[in-house]
Each structure stands twice: as structure tokens, then as C-alpha cells.
């Protein structure tokens, strides 16, 4: 990474936004008027935002600010961890398949095909059913499935790269296959990989929220942005703040991740610019 990339405003602004959100998720629950799972039985429930509850309360009278912060911890963790898993597996898999071609390619991509042909939701549901509901399982399940897209796209791009003149030049100059892969192919995948990663983070967060929609997400009273947005979307007519605040945080976070990805690509001068 070039030194000073973070000095550019296009990178710095979304990075700052993300930092603020992470910070809020981390310390927010201590600032909240009541713990995220406490119920005030004497108060009015589903109350609109006020000084006492800046984001209002949910349909069980729990402080929504505290819940948005706590939910953010889980959503951010899901997005980051599963994207890392997906990056690690997907890039290596796709690049190796695309670069070496032939039997290796056929074998690797057939495996991807097999995994692709397994309907993802069904797979995750079965895992949840078999091993019970656990947050770790949510990470693994989402990460283990989302690398497939990455692998395919990277392979496609590697195939195209292989025919490029500068690769021919490297071959002619006598470099070994693996060396070319590491020195010339992987760095040149940067652009595609960053675009993919920026698409994978929101995807992972959204998949978690879909699990929540099916009632297979994180166990109550713990929560995630997805679960909060889901609850909020159902009661949008009556209590719009239940949707607006978590959805606002969710959308801002996804937006910032995407902006950051785009800006980083420009700043890092990945080939293609």
C-alpha cells in the first residue's frame, strides 16, 4: 500500500465515517439510558424518540439506541469476518484455477459448481438446524458460501490476464509459473478484488439480515442491524423510527464501505486507472 493513501479526502472521509460508527457501536451501549435488553414495565412501549430515548423504544419498551449499537457490533463483525474468509479462499482459488488452467482449473471450478448448485439458504438452514443457533456459525456459514463469487470472478479475470502482453513478456523472461502468479497476476487482480470485496461486505451483512427475516438469525435478546431493520420494516406504518435508525446505520455503513473501496482503488493505483 502506498504511504499517504489515507491522507486523500476520498479515502479519509468514508474511513472516518466507518471509524465513528465502529466507535459508536463499541462504546454506545455505555452511553445508553438503559441496557439493550432491559424492559421498563411502567413506561409506554414503542415510544417515539425523546430526550430519554434518543432513538425511541421498540415494541417491548427496550431502548433502541442501545440496541442499534449492540446490533451494529454483530453486523460489522459478520461483514468483516465473513469477507475476510471469502477473500482468503476465493482469491487464491480463482487465481490458481485461472492461472494454471487445464485439469487443476477443471477440478477447482467443478468443485465451485457443485457448491454453487447447493441452494445457499437451504444449506444455511440445515446448518442452523443441525448445530443450533450460534453466532460463530453465522460467520462461518456466510463466509464459506460467499467466496464462490469471488473465486469465479477472479478466475475469469485471470484467464483474461493470462493473454495480456506483459504476462507473455514475463514468461519469455524465464520467470516460473508460481512466481508470475504471485508477482504479476495477483497484484493485477487488485481492482476486481476490491470491487468484489466491497460487494461482499454488504452482501454478508444482508445475508445475516435475511437469516433474521427467516427467524434464524442471532438469538434474542441479542440483535443485529438486520434483525432490527426486519422488525422495523414490519411496523413501518406505526413506528417509523424503528426502521429509520437501524436502516440509516446499515445503509450509511454499506455506503461508506463501498466508497472506501472505490477510493482505495484509485489511491492505490490498481491497474486500470
Amino acid at each position, binding site marked *: 500500500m502506498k504511504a499517504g493513501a489515507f491522507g486523500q479526502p476520498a479515502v479519509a472521509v468514508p474511513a472516518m465515517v466507518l471509524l465513528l460508527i465502529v466507535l459508536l457501536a463499541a462504546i454506545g451501549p455505555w452511553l445508553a439510558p438503559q441496557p439493550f435488553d432491559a424492559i421498563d414495565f411502567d413506561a409506554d412501549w414503542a415510544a417515539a424518540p425523546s430526550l430519554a430515548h434518543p432513538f425511541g423504544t421498540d415494541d417491548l419498551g427496550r431502548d433502541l439506541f442501545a440496541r442499534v449499537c449492540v446490533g451494529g457490533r454483530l453486523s460489522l463483525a459478520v461483514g468483516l469476518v465473513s469477507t475476510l474468509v471469502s477473500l482468503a479462499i476465493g482469491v487464491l482459488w480463482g487465481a490458481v484455477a485461472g492461472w494454471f488452467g487445464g485439469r487443476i482449473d477443471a477440478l477447482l471450478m467443478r468443485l465451485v459448481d457443485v457448491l454453487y448448485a447447493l441452494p445457499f439458504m437451504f444449506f444455511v438452514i440445515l446448518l442452523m438446524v443441525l448445530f443450533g443457533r450460534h453466532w460463530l456459525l453465522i460467520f462461518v456459514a456466510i463466509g464459506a458460501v460467499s467466496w464462490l463469487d469471488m473465486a469465479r470472478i477472479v478466475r475469469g479475470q485471470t484467464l483474461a490476464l493470462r493473454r495480456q502482453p506483459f504476462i507473455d513478456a514475463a514468461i519469455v523472461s524465464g520467470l516460473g509459473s508460481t512466481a508470475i502468479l504471485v508477482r504479476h497476476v495477483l497484484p493485477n487482480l487488485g481492482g476486481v478484488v476490491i470491487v468484489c470485496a466491497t460487494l461482499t461486505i454488504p452482501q454478508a451483512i444482508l445475508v445475516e439480515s435475511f437469516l433474521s427475516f427467516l427467524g434464524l438469525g442471532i438469538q*434474542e435478546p441479542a440483535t443485529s442491524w438486520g434483525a432490527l431493520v426486519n422488525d422495523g420494516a414490519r411496523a413501518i406504518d406505526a413506528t417509523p423510527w424503528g426502521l429509520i435508525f437501524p436502516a440509516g446505520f446499515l445503509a450509511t455503513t454499506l455506503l461508506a464501505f463501498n466508497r472506501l473501496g472505490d477510493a482505495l482503488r484509485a489511491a492505490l493505483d490498481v491497474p486500470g486507472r
Partner: protein
Amino acid sequence: MLRIGNGNEPESLDPQKATGVSAGNILRDLYEGLTGIGPSGELLPAAAESWHWRADGRELRLQLRDGLRWSNGDVLSAEDFAAGLRRLLDPATASGYASLFAAIANGEAVIAGRRPVSALGVQADDARTLRIRLDRPLPNLPALLAHPAAAPIHPADRAGDPAPGARIGNGAYRLVEWRLQSHIRLQRNRHYWNDRQTSIGEVRYLPTEDLHSELKRYRADELDVTTSVPATQVPWIRRTLGAELRVAPYLGSYFYGLNLTRPPFAGNRPLRQALSLAIDRPLIARKVLHDLAMPAWSLVPPGIHDYTPQVPGWAQWPRAQREAEARRLYAEAGYSAAKPLQVQIRYNTSDDHKRIAVVIAAMWKQVLGAEVTLVNEEWKVFLQHRRARHETEAFRNTWIADSDDAFGFAEILESHHPRNDSGYADAAYDALLQAAAQADDPAVRRSRLEVAERQMLDDAPILPIYFYASKHLVKPRVEGWHDNSLDWHASKDLQLRAP
């Protein structure tokens, strides 16, 4: 055309095999029983114009109307009703409702496969007379005969299983189209004996598995009746659609079971009572369920025929007294702030179950200091665990009446009942139920059941939470809709006002 939101897609419309509310709603339009249930829940003559008990209460003789016909015009006879009951109890049918009629002579033996189906005490003396003999008293048999499971079966449908939706019926409507997950279309049955009283020519049942979507379709005027309403939306519905919301008590109980075969609840009655006392039921009914339910302190709901609700004295206590007594019992049970109770609440995936579990967990935590973990399981896993009693501690449970009879509720806590998920095994309770089942005198039967429930509630193998209410949105143009505790609404009793 009347358009009815009907919840889940029915898995079957075979009257003897189908279970579930959504199938029942349609089957009551497609079939008419010997007896029927009127708009307000009253027992009425239907295919049978009259019935008489023999003096000893062990034989019911029913007289069918003259000129009854199937929807295809064939003559309907008493033998068709007898065939329906035989098919229901035939083990080859594997019906979930067979046990409802196990009291019919030789019923137990037929269900178990020890006697041939022909041995069942059901007999057509002639084309219009049906006789049903009983092994033990079954005073609500006439009401049970209104259940779709007791529907007649056409001779042509007796041999094999016709395609879904192709069975011949005898109700006020006949099925003309069944598009799975899309709609089921019924048209008036011109051969129905009382067809001239039928007002609505066509009825469509639409599957509406998502209550929020159903509400939107109702608002978009694509439905005339909804199957339910989402609880969280109720305040909003009351504000905007108030007059169209129809809420009525429903014969169902929502309660928490406690697993008595394992710690912490095995042999610890004070603990069970403490947890029961710590639950603020009126608050749950008011704030969580928005008054679409009634707070419950007993298993058998009010409004059950010939029964007095068994409400314990502490139900009326002020909150401070109730909570103080809960804490006293909690201490007596051997728990304290230093040694808090650690307990799991297990429930299956559903918005309402989740909300109630969260609130009860908070009550136990805030009143007693218990450490409560919520365990949300997917439906089939939950059923498996609940039945096996190996993992459960406190768990969500429900019982909905098949008929207007307290015994149907009481028996689920009998030691060997398949739905005794708490593992409650009390010899005195079993004996009282046995005595009630054998009692010929309704007053004796009733008092046995009432005593049994009082004793059981004091033992607290279950914690009653609320009694169900049926809730529907009904468009103003639908007329003749009456609330009733069975939540049965026959299309033939409804009319559509011209726009």
C-alpha cells in the same frame, strides 16, 4: 365473490386426513356434517334433522333429512356417513383426529388395528337413520359430529385416494379450482338441500402465510376477510381500521410448560410457583398482545361448555404482594441473589413467541433475579425436544380445543398422554380424570374435572399465560359475520352487500 385470507396453504383437503385450521375452514364449506355449528357457535341440525340419545347415554340415533344429495347429484345416504366414520378410525387412514371418536363402540380396538373396521359401532339402519353406539359416555358427541373429520364419504371415493381437490362433497359449496399457493375457488353447490338460502355464489380462499402482507392486501381491497392480524400492528389497526377488527374469545390456551423430569423443576414446587407468580399476565395481554388475548391463570379457558374457570386467589393480588410472595417462594426453593436460578426458555421461531419469551425473561430477571437464557429453535427441532423432555426446562406450549369440552384440555396432563410435555405424573389427577371419563352424570363429570384442575394448578407443572382470541379484519360489505368461540364462519351464512 368473497375473498378470504386463509393463512397457510392446506396440506390436504381430505376431510378425514386433513388437520389444521386452514383446511378446516374450507372443509366446512365443502362438507356438511350430521350436525352443524351456527353463526354464533350454536349446535344446529345439519344433514341430520334430529337426534336422540338412548336413556343410558350409550347410543345416539340420528335422523337424516329427506332428499340429501352429493354435489354431483347422487343420493346421499346414512351409509355414507357411517363410511366416513369408519374411514376416520381405520388405521390405514392414519388420521390425526381418529382419537376424537375413540369412545365409539370398539373404537380403541379399531384404531389400534386389533379389530376390523367393520366392528366399529356405527350402523346405518336405513337410508336416513344412523346409529352410533358408545363404549363410554361422550355427551358432546353431537357437537363432535359437526367436525369435518366426521364428514361423509362418497361411494366413488372409498376405494382409492382421488387427486387432491377431486373428492365429492355434500356442503353448500363445491371445489372448482385448486391452484396450490395461489387460490382455492369454490362455487355454490346447486344440489345442497338448503341452496336457496346461500347468498354468495363464489368463494376464494387465498393462502396468506405472511400476516404483514395479508394486511397490505386487505388494505388494497384484494381480501374481504383476513385470517389474523400481526400483533405489533394492532394499535395502528385500531386507529385506522378500528370498526373492521373483529376480536372474539377462542377456545385455546397459551402456557409455559415446565419439564418436571429434570432439574431445576423436578421436585421443586415452590420454584415453579415462584416463577408463575412472577409473571404479570394482565401486562402481557395488554402491552405485548394489545388486548387480543385474555390473561390466563388456568388451563381451561372461560366459555367452555358446562365448566367454571379455576382462577387461583392470588390472581387478584396487587403487584407488590404477588411479587413479594414470588420472592418468598423463590427463597424457599433454595435460590437467592448469591445463588440465582439459571433457566432456559425454549420457544419455536415466531414473532409473538419471541416477544412473550423476552418479556417473561425480563420479569423473572427483574422480580426474582433469575438468569434466563432464551433458546429459539426451528419448529421441528423444538417439537422433538419438547416431546423428548431431555433438554427442555421452561418451554412455550399451546392447546387448542377440538370441541367445546373441558376434558380435552385436562387430558393433556394425564401421565401417558402423548402431549404431556411437562412429564406431569400425578396419580390423584389421573384418577380424577378417569372418574370424569366414566361419569354418566354431567354434574359429577364437571366437578371431577374442576377439582383436578385446581390441584394441578397448585402443583404448577404448567404456567398459564393467556387465552387465545380469534382476530380478523372483515370488510364492512361482508354481512352476517358473527363472532364465536370456535372461530367457525361458514360462507353460506355470509352475505355481500352490493357496493
